[in-house]
Structure formats: structure tokens, C-alpha cells
């Protein structure tokens, strides 16, 4: 079979869609009060740095995915079990995204439809596209990137046109706000959504031109950082801090308020569409990462054969893991605090350092 390849612009689109996935819909970094937008900006350099570490590891081992070079760097006996750890974490996070989408859909519109149905329809689409391979996925992402951008533009545009925005809600920033912003930026926003890019360590080896990965990736991260910052700033400026922090899905509440000339109103569907698209791509990448790592560790030749099992596990995890949205959120707090940082930041940094040391002292045989 022909080797699948991904172009730079496809990579760009995938990263942006991945970053925007769920982070644009659910409130992030609540500790920082009305300075959420600031903490996103603060977390951005950290995110870029983290990506550069992933990228550096990829440049060192251009043909290997993360589980491959983990074994190379740490040796087979530490590397293999450590890589194994990636699989459940990635799958669990994928299932969390699915759950969030399902819950928004249920609370926004489908209150009488079981979450199993909603989630399984989504996962069927994910399995379908992954079955087509990463190249098709990348092309689809490229097309949806534009659709997302247009929808984002429309959403933000109508909110501004409706005269709902009150920038007073964003300012002024006092010393305390800066500190709050910083504490919520690191590690929370740094890890979610920026640290989650660890999934892309499995996508990078498919790049057509490896040289461009750094520049493209960083641009994509900065763009998505700014878009996130802008969107959340708009949300806060419309809703005010109180409602923003109490809302399960602030962007949804924001858009329901829109009423331009009694004609452009009730654009909730656009938000739901944004969420569906975002979650779809984010989850697909999670599933892809989990699938490829599994295939790599257990020496399965064609990763596509694992797509269906991984998808089914993600589907069932998504609604077994928590009995309601509240406990889902509480689980998330623990997960975001301990597990995700370990996988997204600690391990890659460790790999990076060990690799440098071994290389420096010639410890590779």
C-alpha cells in the first residue's frame, strides 16, 4: 500500500481544529475570573514550547511515533510499559470529549434521546473516517477548517453586531487578576488544550516535508490560541463573570442572546454545529493516536484493523465513566490535574532530556 502523506496546510488545519475542539465550548480556567482571556494568552508560550519539544523529538526520530522513540530512548523494558500507559489515557480523554459533546447536545436540544445513541452516532462517523486513513482525515480537516473559520466569523460577527459586547467586563486588570490568570494558565490551560497536542506525535511522521513541522505547528498553535482567547473574551464580555462561570456551555448562552433586527436570532444551531465538528476532529485524533500506538506496541501491521475496537471502547467509556455531567466534571478535575500533565508534559520532557543526555554522552549503542 502507498504510504500516506499529509501536507503542511493539512497539518495546520488539523492542529487548529484540534485545539478549538472542546476548548471553545466549555468554560476553561475558571479560577482566573474575568481574566480567562489573559490566562489563555499566558499559557500560549508554554504550549508552543511544549510543542517544540514534541517536534524536536520527532525530528530526532522522523519515522517513529511516540511509543517508538520512547522505547528507543528509555530502552525496551522501561519504554514498552510506559508507552502502554499512553493508550488508556488517550482513549479516556477521547471519551471525555465525546461525553461533553453528548451532554451539550442533550441539554441543548436532545433531552429525550439517550446519550448512547448520540455518542454512538458520533463514534460511527469517527470510525468511518479513520477507516479511510489519516490522509483522507487530513483532507477532510482541511475543508472543515474553512467551514469552522466561517462559522466562527459569523458567530462572533453577529454577537458583536447585536451590540451585546461590553468590554467593561474584561477590564480593569488588577494585580490579583494577573496572579489568578497565571495560576489558572499553568498548568490547567497549558495542559488543556495546549498540552493535548501530544497526540500529534503520532501524526507528525506522516508529514510530507518534515522540515516544515515546527513552523507550521507553532503558527497553528498561536492562531488557535488567539482565536480561543478572542472567543472567550467575547463570551465574558457578553455574559459577565457571574453567568459565564455558572454556565455549563457559555458559548451557547451567548449565542442565544443574539437578536439582530428581530431577524437574525436563535443561532444556537451554529454553536452546536461548531461543537460537533470540533469534537469530531479532536476525538478522531485521540482515537487515531490510541490506535496507532496500540498497533505499534502490539505489532499490528495495519492500524485500521484496530479502529473499530478502539472506537467501541471509547464509546462505552464515554457513558460508563460518569453517571452525570457533574461527576464527569469532577472526574475531569482530577484527571486534568494528575494524569494528563504526566502524559502531556512530564513524559515528553523526560524523554527529551534523557535523549539529549544519552546523545551528548554517546550512550546510544
Amino acid at each position, binding site marked *: 500500500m502507498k504510504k500516506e502523506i499529509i501536507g503542511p496546510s493539512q497539518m495546520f488545519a488539523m492542529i487548529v481544529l484540534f485545539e478549538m475542539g472542546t476548548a471553545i465550548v466549555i468554560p476553561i480556567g475558571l479560577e482566573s475570573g474575568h481574566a480567562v482571556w489573559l490566562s489563555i494568552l499566558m499559557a500560549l508560550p508554554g504550549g508552543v514550547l511544549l510543542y517544540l519539544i514534541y517536534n524536536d523529538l520527532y525530528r530526532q526520530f522522523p519515522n517513529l511515533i511516540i511509543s517508538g522513540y520512547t522505547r528507543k530512548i528509555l530502552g525496551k523494558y522501561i519504554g514498552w510499559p510506559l508507552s502502554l500507559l499512553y493508550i488508556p489515557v488517550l482513549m479516556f480523554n477521547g471519551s471525555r470529549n465525546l461525553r461533553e459533546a453528548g451532554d451539550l447536545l442533550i441539554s441543548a436540544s*436532545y433531552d429525550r*434521546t439517550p446519550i448512547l445513541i448520540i455518542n454512538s452516532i458520533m463514534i460511527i462517523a469517527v470510525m*468511518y473516517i479513520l477507516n479511510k486513513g489519516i490522509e483522507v482525515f487530513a483532507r477532510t480537516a482541511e475543508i472543515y477548517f474553512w467551514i469552522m473559520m466561517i462559522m466562527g466569523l459569523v458567530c462572533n460577527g453577529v454577537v458583536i453586531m447585536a451590540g451585546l459586547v461590553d468590554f467593561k467586563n474584561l477590564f480593569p486588570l488588577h494585580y490579583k487578576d494577573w496572579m489568578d490568570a497565571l495560576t489558572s494558565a499553568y498548568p490547567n490551560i497549558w495542559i488543556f488544550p495546549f498540552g493535548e497536542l501530544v497526540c500529534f506525535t503520532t501524526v507528525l511522521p506522516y508529514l510530507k516535508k518534515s522540515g516544515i513541522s515546527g513552523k507550521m505547528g507553532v503558527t497553528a498553535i498561536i492562531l488557535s490560541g488567539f482565536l480561543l482567547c478572542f472567543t472567550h473574551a467575547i463570551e465574558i464580555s457578553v455574559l459577565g463573570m457571574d*453567568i459565564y462561570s455558572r454556565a455549563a456551555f457559555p458559548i451557547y448562552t451567548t449565542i*442565544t*442572546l443574539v437578536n439582530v433586527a428581530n431577524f437574525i436570532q436563535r443561532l444556537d444551531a451554529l454553536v452546536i454545529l461548531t461543537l460537533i465538528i470540533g469534537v469530531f476532529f479532536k476525538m478522531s485524533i485521540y482515537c487515531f493516536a490510541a490506535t496507532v500506538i496500540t498497533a505499534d506496541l502490539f505489532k499490528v501491521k495495519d492500524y485500521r484493523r484496530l479502529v473499530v475496537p478502539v472506537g467501541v471502547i471509547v464509546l462505552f467509556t464515554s457513558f460508563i465513566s460518569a453517571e452525570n455531567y457533574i461527576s464527569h466534571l469532577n472526574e475531569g478535575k482530577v484527571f486534568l490535574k494528575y494524569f494528563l500533565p504526566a502524559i502531556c508534559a512530564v513524559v515528553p520532557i523526560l524523554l527529551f532530556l534523557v535523549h539529549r543526555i544519552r546523545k551528548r554522552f554517546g550512550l546510544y549503542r
Partner: protein
Amino acid sequence: MKTKHLSVLVLFVLLSLNLAGCWNSRELNELAIVSGIGIDRVMDTGKLRVTFQVVNPSATTTTQGASTNQSPISIYTVNDRTVFGALRRASKQATRQLFFAHAQLLVIGESLAEGGMKDVLDIFERSHELRLNTTVLVSRDTDAESILKVLLPQESVPSIGLGKKAENTSKVWGETPQVSVFETIKEITGGGGFTISGVRMLGNVEEGQKKASLEQTKAETSILISGQAVFNKGKLMNWIDGPEARGAQWILDKIYETNLNLDSGDQAKAIAVNVVFSKTKIKVEMRDGLPIFHIRINEEGNLNETQSAVNLSQNHEIRKLEAEMEKLTKKEVQEAFQAAQKAECDYFNLGNEFKRVNPAEWKKVEKDWNQIFAKGTLELQVHAFIRATGMRVTPLKAPE
């Protein structure tokens, strides 16, 4: 191999579609579209009396040949402890499921407003069906139920008509605000007081709910927007009207357009100036533990009518009128401000502005802000401009 995969997937999709079996699918003709909701408190039981105004689609004038003699709306009234309970209990009376996404109007009964209205708003936030930009009105001297019962001329759905009335008067007369549920929630959680337009009924309900009352040039019963209900800590405190009410709007920067009748040399209140632009800027500062409120108003207007013989071709005459405008505005604002101070209720939300700018200081005064507010001083600056005088320069004169 590949096609097999594909067909399995397709089968999966089809099966799950069958499973989905349209849980959320509802036919339009199985829904009763609720256009307005009224909530009163039943005094002795503490229950809520919730009134729903439901549209009869076939009787609305939007349809060609709406020949049915039905009233364009039907009213259902239900008593229950919770609003949602009432929604569901209404099924006993309604043939169709009530559908709330298009509720245009929420009327809070005076009885409920006096006891505090915060609790009934939760469902508007929590439910995806109820909307946050529904207009809120407070019934004055009557209950919400009667307000919703009365039919209006021109608008076949009275709730929509009332929403338009509230919007219309707030846009061109500026004495009352058009407030949505969202804004109400924001104000309640903001801590200070706030105001909502009142709505009152002239005539009686019995006549007003008959279709026949619309068959005459002047409807038997009419509903009009009247004054502002002042809420303090979520409870109705008093009503403000007239210049006081407009002054409050001025402080809140909610004047879009309004009319000022100015005095001129020989006659009182004989010149009408239409204010078409107004912008209020507020700064709060603490001096010796007492607040000073700097309020700056910039307004622009067009002279639309004069019944006195002013020579408008003279610049200094215009200047005089502008000064007159400033004086009148100042008077209204001060009146409003003093009323608020007398009532010890900061319904202009000046506290919020202070909180935003200086959160540390705010912490200290937060507790008894209303008292502190009552002792504060107002520093008012008004700049008025007359931009146009219409199609004529000098007024008409009969030879003497």
C-alpha cells in the same frame, strides 16, 4: 474486505437510526406555542399561579383566510409550587404539549414581585427551551393573569404586541426600559437594585378578553406600559414615574431617543426637541469614606416643533435652547438621583461600576453600600447640542 467494512458500517448506522426512533421529534401541530407567561403568587398558599398565553395558529391573522371565530390566543392558568411543575400540570387543560421556546413575554405579578422574584428566574436559565431574551414586565395594580388575558388591536398575539410596546416606548420616549430575562438575572446577581417597566390595564378584564372588544375603534380595555418598578435586593420596593423615571434612564445610559419640551422666553414648554443621541459616562470615587459620582451626559437633539416665536436663525437663540436642554436634563437626573438616595437603593448600579474599578475598596463598603450611596454626592455635567431645526428656519408668524 473494504466494501465489507463499509457495509457493516452502513448497517450499524441504519440500526442505530432505528434505535433513535425520533425521541425528540415533535410535530408542529402537536405543540401549543406559548407566547407569554405570567407568574403571580397566591397569597395564602405560597404557591405560584402561572398563566400561559397560547397561540391558536389557525386564528392568527398571518394565515390566509383565517375564518375561524376562535380567539387568537387561549389562556391556561395553573397553580403549583414550582414553575416547571405548573408547566407540566397545564397538560390537564391543554390539548397539546406546551412549547416555550417562543415565549416573548414574562409578566411578573405585583404580588410576586413584592415578595421577591429571584427564584422564578432559575428555570429560564436552566432550561434550553425558555429563552433569556424574553421581555420582562411587572404588572402594576393588577395581576399578571389579567394582563395576559387582554387582546390587543393590530397584534393578533398580545404578548408579541406587548413586547413591541415595551420596545417602542423605550426607544422613542425613554421613560421605561425594555428589560430581558438575561438583564434581570445579571442585575440580580450584580447585587444592586434595578428597575423593570411596569404594565397596567385600563378598563376591565372581562371586556378585554372578548374578541368583540376589538371590533370598535377604541378597544374596551387597553394595556399600557407605565412607570418603572424599582427592585431592591430582588424585591419590589416602589414605583417611579415621569421625570424621575426618565432621569433614571439617563443615568443608566439607556436613552435612545426622547422628547424634551423646553421653555423659551415667552412661553413655557413650547419647544419640542427630539433627543436622538445620548451618552452617559460615570466615574465613582471615594472621598473621606463617602462616594462622589461624576456623571457626564452628552446629548444631541433636533428641534422638531416650536410654538413660540424664537428666531432660530440666530446662533445665540440656539445656544439658549441648548442651555435650556441641559437645565431640563439636569433637573430630571437630579430628581431621579435624589429619589434613589431617599429610598436608599442604588438602582443605577453605580456600585457595580465602583466594584469593577476598585475591587479592594469595594470589599469594605459592600455591606452597607445602600446607606453609603444615600450619603454620596452627585457631580453632574450635561452637554447638549441642537443639530438641526427641520425644514424651516424661522417659525411662522401671523401679521399683527
